[in-house]
C-alpha cells in the first residue's frame, strides 16, 4: 500500500516528533513472473523499541545511520549550533574551496522544474514518495542557505525563497535523509541547468561527519578509521592478506595447471594493482583471475603489503573529505615509494574514481593510474591471450557502475571486451551513462543495520532487479540454466548478490553475478577446465 497520500511539505521536516512518513513497500515498479507477487517477498522489518529509544531521525521508519538522541536540552542546543557552524563552513572558501562553486550554483539556480524526479530510482520505486523526491532534500538545504548564509533582508528572503524552522528534529531527520540517496547522480545528469542534487546530498553528509561527528559506523568507524589503523576496512592486516592471497594463488594454480604466484612490494614494477580488499575475502576468483591475466600477459606487476596499500576502498568519498584525503595520500605515498609506473585499480567503481580523478593529481610526477577496464582491454588488444568466446556461451548482461561509467565516462572498453568474449551478451535498458544504480551506491551495499537492508531491496535496488530480469526476458526465467550479470565493481556486486538472494533469483532463474575479469579468463582457450564454476557460486 502506498503512503503517498500523506501530503508532505518541505517545512514539515521540522515538525512533530514521530516518523514523518511511515513507508511500506509498494508495487510501482512491476516485475515479471515469477517475481510479480509483492506479498510473497520478505516484508519490511519494523524498528525495535530498543532502536526507537536509542536513535533520533525519524523520517520514514528506517534507520541507516542511527543518530544518537541528545541527553538533554542543553546538548540538543549544542548540536543545533554545531550544525549552523558546519553550514557556514560549507559555504566558505577556506573550508570548502573544492566544492563551493558547484554547491552555490546548485543552491541558487534550481528552477523547480522537477525534470530530475523521474530519473531517481528510489523516488520511482517508492511510488513517488515526496520525501524521496531528489529536490525535497535539496530544498531543505536551499532554504537554510538563504535563511542563514546568504546576506539580505530576512523578511525579503523569507518571502522570496520560503522559510524553514531549524531545530533538532530537522537536523536528525536530514541526517537520515542524506542516506536515502545513492549519489548515483542520474538526476544531476538530467538537470537542464546543471544543478547537482547528488552533490548536495554529499555536502550534507560531509557537514554531519566533519562538523558533528555523525556518520554510519560501517563507513567511518569500521570503514575509514579501521582502514587507516589496521590497513583495511575488512580488518585484514598485512599478515592476513598475505596468507589469503597465498591461499588464492594455490587455488588458482590448481585450477589452471600452471603456477600462479603473486609478488609483493616489487620496486619499480610496471603495475601496482590495488584491489578492493573485499574481493579477496568474498570473491577470491576476481583477484585470482587478475593474477592469471597479468601472468599470461607477461606484465611486471605487484601488490603492496603496506597498510592501506592492499585495500583500494576509500569510503571517505561518500561522507568525509578529510578521511578521503588521508587515504588517498597514503595510496599515493605507497606508489611513489615503490616507484611503480602506474597504479591499476581493481574492479571497484569508487576506488577508480578516487584514484583516477583525485589521486592522479595528488600523485603527480611519473606515477599514473589506470582503471581495470581499459587495462584489460589493452591486454586483450595486445593479442597475448588465446580467447575462445564459445567458452562463455551463456547469456551475459552488463551492469554499469555509476562511478566508472556516468561519472568517469568509461563506457565502451567493457562493451568491446564483452562483444569479443561473450556471444550471448545483451544490454540492459537504459545503459551506459543512462544506467540505473545497483541501489548499493555511496556505501549502502555495506550498510545493513536495523532495517536498512530491507530498504535497499525494496527501494534503492528494485529498479536494477527489474533491469536484470528484462535483460534476460528472452530466456526462460523459470529455468535455472546459468545467466550472468557482469558487474565490474565490488560495491555493486555486494548489492546485486543481496538482491538476487532476496528474490531467490539464483534458485528460480539461474541468475548469477560476477566481475569482468572472470569472464575473460573463462574465455582463455588454453585452460583445461572452465574458470567459472557455477556450482561454486
Amino acid at each position: 500500500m502506498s503512503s503517498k497520500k500523506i501530503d508532505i511539505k518541505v517545512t514539515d521536516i521540522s515538525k512533530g516528533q514521530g516518523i514523518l512518513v511511515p513507508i511500506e513497500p509498494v508495487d510501482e515498479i512491476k516485475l515479471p513472473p515469477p517475481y510479480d507477487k509483492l506479498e510473497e517477498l520478505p516484508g519490511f522489518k519494523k524498528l525495535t523499541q530498543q532502536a526507537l529509544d536509542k536513535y533520533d531521525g525519524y523520517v520514514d521508519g528506517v534507520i541507516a545511520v542511527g543518530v544518537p538522541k541528545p541527553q538533554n536540552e542543553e546538548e540538543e542546543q549544542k548540536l543545533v549550533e554545531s550544525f549552523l557552524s558546519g553550514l557556514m563552513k560549507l559555504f566558505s572558501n577556506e573550508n570548502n574551496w573544492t566544492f563551493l562553486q558547484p554547491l552555490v550554483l546548485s543552491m541558487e539556480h534550481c528552477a523547480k522544474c522537477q525534470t530530475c524526479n523521474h530519473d531517481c530510482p528510489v523516488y520511482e520505486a517508492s511510488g513517488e514518495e515526496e520525501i524521496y523526491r531528489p529536490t525535497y532534500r535539496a530544498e531543505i538545504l536551499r532554504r537554510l542557505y538563504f535563511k542563514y548564509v546568504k546576506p539580505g533582508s530576512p523578511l525579503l528572503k523569507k518571502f522570496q525563497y520560503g522559510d524553514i524552522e531549524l531545530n533538532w528534529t530537522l537536523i536528525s531527520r536530514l541526517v537520515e535523509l542524506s542516506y536515502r540517496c545513492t549519489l548515483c547522480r542520474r538526476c544531476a545528469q538530467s538537470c537542464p541547468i546543471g544543478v547537482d542534487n547528488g552533490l548536495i546530498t554529499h555536502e550534507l553528509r560531509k557537514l554531519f561527519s566533519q562538523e558533528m561527528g555523525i556518520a554510519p559506523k560501517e563507513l567511518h568507524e569500521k570503514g575509514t578509521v579501521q582502514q587507516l589503523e589496521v590497513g583495511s576496512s575488512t580488518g585484514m592486516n598485512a599478515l592476513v592478506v598475505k596468507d589469503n592471497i597465498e591461499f588464492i594463488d594455490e587455488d588458482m594454480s590448481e585450477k589452471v595447471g600452471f603456477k600462479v604466484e603473486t609478488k609483493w612490494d616489487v620496486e619499480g614494477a610496471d603495475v601496482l594493482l590495488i584491489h578492493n580488499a573485499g574481493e579477496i575475502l568474498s570473491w577470491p576468483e576476481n583477484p585470482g583471475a587478475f593474477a592469471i591475466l597479468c601472468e599470461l600477459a607477461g606484465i611486471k606487476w605487484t601488490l603492496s603489503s603496506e597498510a592501506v596499500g592492499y585495500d583500494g576502498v576509500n569510503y571517505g568519498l561518500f561522507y568525509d573529505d578529510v578521511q578521503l584525503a588521508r587515504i588517498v595520500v597514503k595510496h599515493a605515498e605507497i606508489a611513489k615509494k615503490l616507484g611503480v609506473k602506474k597504479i591499476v585499480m581493481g574492479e571497484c567503481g569508487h576506488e577508480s574514481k578516487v584514484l583516477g580523478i583525485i589521486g592522479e593529481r595528488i600523485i603527480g610526477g611519473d606515477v599514473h593510474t589506470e582503471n581495470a577496464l581499459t587495462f584489460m582491454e589493452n591486454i586483450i588488444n595486445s593479442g597475448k591471450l588465446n580467447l575462445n568466446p564459445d567458452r562463455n556461451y551463456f547469456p551475459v548482461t552488463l551492469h554499469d557502475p555509476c562511478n566508472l561509467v556516468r561519472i568517469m565516462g568509461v563506457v565502451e572498453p567493457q562493451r568491446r571486451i564483452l562483444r569479443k568474449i561473450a556471444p550471448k551478451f545483451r544490454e540492459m535498458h537504459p545503459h551506459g551513462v543512462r544506467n540505473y544504480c545497483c541501489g548499493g551506491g555511496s556505501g549502502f551495499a555495506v550498510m545493513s543495520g536495523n532495517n536498512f537492508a530491507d530498504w535497499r531491496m525494496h527501494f534503492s535496488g528494485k529498479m536494477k532487479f527489474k533491469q536484470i530480469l528484462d535483460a534476460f526476458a528472452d530466456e526462460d526465467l523459470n529455468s535455472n540454466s546459468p545467466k550472468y550479470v557482469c558487474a565490474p565493481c565490488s560495491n555493486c556486486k555486494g548489492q546485486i548478490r543481496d538482491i538476487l538472494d532476496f528474490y531467490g533469483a539464483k534458485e528460480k532463474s539461474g541468475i548469477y553475478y560476477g566481475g569482468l575479469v572472470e569472464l575473460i579468463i573463462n574465455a582463455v582457450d588454453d585452460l583445461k577446465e572452465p574458470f567459472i564454476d557455477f556450482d561454486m557460486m
Partner: protein
Amino acid sequence: MPLFEWEEVKIMVDEDGFMENPEEWNERVALALASTEDISELTEDHWKIINYLRDYFKQYGIAPMIRKLCKETGYSLKQIYELFPSGPAKGACKVAGLAKPTGCV
C-alpha cells in the same frame, strides 16, 4: 547496543545480533545465538565449523575467507547453508561469536 537474553545468558549484541564483546563467548552463548538463527541444536558438524572459526578468529582477529573455511573444514558451501541457514558470514560467524564482517564483503 541491545541486550540479548536467553535462559541464563546475557550478552550485548549489535543491530544484527552479532556479539559486541566476542571475548565473552562460551558454549552456552553459542547455544543462545543459535536460537536466533533457526538452529534447534548444535550437532558435531556445527561444532567443527564453530571451532574452526573460533581458532581462526583467535589467531587473526577476523573471519576467514569463506573458500578457506570450506576447504579446511571439508564442508561445501551448500552444507554450511544447511547447517547455518543464514550462511557462513551471517549465520556461522554469529554463532561462533565473531564480530560482524566489515568492508566491501
